């Protein structure tokens, strides 16, 4: 009988049959190991959870105070049914971990989401030697090459300073968990008061309560005096785009932090004033570096440019296969929320129609003549 693989892709998780443990299941299971607290990896309803201790505040916030959660430190070993597990820093967000699984001398690593650059908040990524590596490929194309973090942060500093000089509010958008803490730890705080949307405020408070070193934020509400926001920094999740809440800050400039901002198309679609190319995922050079440093002889490529990256690895002497998972939907969730906003959508649509009118007319009246 052929040996069954240590980890399997079952259609509801990355599953270790010998230990009966699911990594990042997207359906309720008995025992789950969670790589990090983003909603596409940490899902509701499992009987038992295990995660890094720094994930605890947010996991309890999002999945419920009373979940059955066991926490461990990075590098701490624990056995389940004879299988040796340990978590190692993934550098993606606070508490994010790669899951190392060892059985009878064979080592697999499921990396969840990760980045190599030290963001000065999450514990920096550490490469883990393994036989089989499971990697994300969110930005698995050679067009994605991040600039050093301090350059992007300096851009944010300049943008805020410029807006301050013009008495405009600076509405900075990005994911509430991960991106916002990274920003708060790396930009220059030009004001003692920083305003935030509820989603970001809550995450920040939970992390502060748990003892993390983050500045205090002030919840921005509709009832506040508009004058307060002149020149202020307001942190907002992408879903706040175009809401009545955001209009409160007028006049304002919108900055959006995401790896997708590297492309004009994505930037223009969002119709933001300023796109900051800042991602908590590996870019192309780092993805290749990470894979190489694991020394893995086999790589499974999950969410992102799976087929492309798998082909690239195969052509470069590393056996690779693509795997379908339900990860990587954090963007889509945000997009859907944004799509519900009528006014932003309407504007973009009108613009699109005008462009189209122009093309159609040119095509017709000047076609090839």
């Amino acid at each position, binding site marked *: 009988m052929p040996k069954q693989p240590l980890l399997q892709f079952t259609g509801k998780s990355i599953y270790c049959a010998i230990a009966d443990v699911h990594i990042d299941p997207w359906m309720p299971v008995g025992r789950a190991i969670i790589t990090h607290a983003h909603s596409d990896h940490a899902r509701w309803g499992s009987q038992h959870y295990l995660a890094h201790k720094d994930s605890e505040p947010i996991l309890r916030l999002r999945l419920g105070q009373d979940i059955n959660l066991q926490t461990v430190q990075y590098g701490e070993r624990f056995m389940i049914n004879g299988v040796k597990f340990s978590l190692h820093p993934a550098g993606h967000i606070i508490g994010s971990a790669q899951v190392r699984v060892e059985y009878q001398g064979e080592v697999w690593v499921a990396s969840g989401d990760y980045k190599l650059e030290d963001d000065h908040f999450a514990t920096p990524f550490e490469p883990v030697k393994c036989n089989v590596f499971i990697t994300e490929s969110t930005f698995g194309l*050679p067009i994605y090459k991040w600039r050093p973090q301090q350059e992007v942060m300096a851009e944010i500093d300049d943008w805020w300073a410029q807006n301050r000089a013009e008495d405009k509010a600076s509405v900075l958008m990005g994911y509430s968990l991960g991106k916002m803490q990274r920003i708060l730890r790396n930009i220059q705080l030009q004001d003692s008061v920083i305003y935030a949307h509820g989603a970001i405020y809550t995450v920040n408070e939970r992390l502060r309560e748990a003892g993390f070193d983050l500045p205090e934020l002030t919840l921005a509400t509709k009832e506040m005096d508009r004058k307060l926001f002149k020149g202020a920094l307001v942190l907002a999740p992408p879903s706040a785009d175009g809401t009545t809440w955001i209009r409160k800050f007028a006049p304002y400039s919108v900055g959006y932090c995401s790896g997708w901002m590297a492309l004009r198309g994505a930037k223009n679609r969002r119709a933001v004033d300023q796109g900051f190319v800042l991602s908590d995922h590996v870019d192309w050079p780092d993805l290749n570096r990470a894979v190489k440093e694991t020394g893995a002889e086999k790589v499974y490529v999950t969410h992102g*440019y799976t087929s492309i990256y798998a082909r690239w690895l195969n052509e470069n002497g590393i056996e690779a296969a693509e795997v379908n998972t339900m990860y990587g939907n954090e963007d889509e969730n945000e997009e859907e929320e944004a799509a519900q906003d009528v006014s932003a959508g309407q504007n973009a*649509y009108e613009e699109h*129609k005008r462009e189209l009118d122009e093309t159609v007319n040119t095509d017709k009246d000047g076609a090839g*003549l």
Partner: protein
Amino acid sequence: MKQFAELFMNLDRTNKTNAKVDLLKSYFQTASDDDKLWALTLFTGRRPSFKVNRTQVKEWAAEEAGIPMWLFQESYHSVGDLGETISLLLPRTSPGGSEKSLSEWFHYLGMLPGMADEQKRDHIIRAWTQLSQHETFVFNKLLMGSFRIGVSQTLVVRALAEATETDSNVIAHRVMGQWDPLDTTFEQLILDKGENDNASRPYPFFLAYPIEGDVADLGEPNDWFAEWKWDGIRSQIIYRNKELFIWTRGEELSTEKFPELHFLSDVLPDGTVLDGEIVTYADGRPMPFNVLQTRIGRKNLSKKVLEEAPVAFLAYDMLEANGVDIRGLTQEQRRVQLEAVHASMPAQNYFHLSPLIDFEDWQALRDLHPQSRDNIAEGFMIKRKASTYQVGRKKGDWWKWKIDPLSIDAVLIYAQKGSGRRAELFTDYTFAVWGDDGKLVPFAKAYSGLTDAEIGQVDYFIKRNVLEKFGPVRTVKPELVFEIGFEGINESTRHKSGIAVRFPRILRWRKDKKAEEADSLGNLREILNNYK
């Protein structure tokens, strides 16, 4: 280049008209005259060609980036823009950018046409190493003649008018027609206050707005002319200094394309400019646009083409008489002059007046409107008798009243990612109808007409229902039904369905319909037969 690349990026980023005008204006106030001239060349849609082969440029870029061609192509599909893809893939050797100006780069590019391939390669790569990412992007757009920007000529004209404190109608006229940045200067082109000696220069076209609400809202019927809205090519015919020029609305000089009209240089009075529509025409009436399409884009007009698709000019306005600009006269007065020119001509088959429709009241027009297709027209043009000939699309005096498009319910079967604003989203769709054998037959591609929210939903569906991949194209589970509108329909041997539709677009998403309830090829043929 720095200044121009920055202008381009800033323009690209904003959707606000006023912000765009401000950016352009400040560029026109601060850039050197040489750079302004080149910028204007680009903004007015003139794209100098440097005779480079896109495939070669792709190969050179992939080589420089150290990636195989298939990975280059995948990157390109994701980005949706070749110039941008290259700018992202190249190793970043000069983040600070280049000190050379826009016009200096144009001259640099101007050296390419005489070079052998190997030299071209070195020349282009040398440029890439000197430019920042944004500059590389703009440079690539210039290199490949694919420079496009979301700024209409009207806005450019407005900004330039404000920057130079000149009347915008004057600027609009000055930037039109034939000019080459290599043999003119900004000073000559824009600032020259005297009479310009550019005999070929057309006037900016006056464009109509679609009519809103009921036609009766226009008021007194007697204040208006009505004509058929011809389905042809909007054109301006200029005869000055014994030379004939034919311009199409796409601002292309197309005199050579219409030999049928060359006799006009023998019969028009010198200093005449006419506005009208070029249509294919036989047996005393226009032919459908499909026929005109058979000769559009052809380099050589064979005898056969000229016989099968002869054109005529249907004149409806006169802009210059005896060398004098008469756009300030009323529509009615200009019509009188136009009719006089027509009356002075010998009888022939190629120059006709677009007839005025006789109507007592609005009801008479409403009754006649459904017959547009029988008259090979797209509806009516309604023009105020007292109106002057204005510049661009202005509301109030010229209205178009179009007939409803033809439509059919079709199933989404293939999807491809969009480009530019829509890169990463599946926005280009192919639709099919049910064939006689019960299989879906593709018949049209369409990509417009959905709201952003709907595009998001369709994209979400597609990403979860891909059946097969062929390069950038995805075969999608046939489930979603859309009502597809189109302007014309014709038999076609090139299409699997045997039918080609013109200007297909999505009218609405038929969420109420299942794929089985979509229309059939039979329904499509029925429309074709009625339309012929």
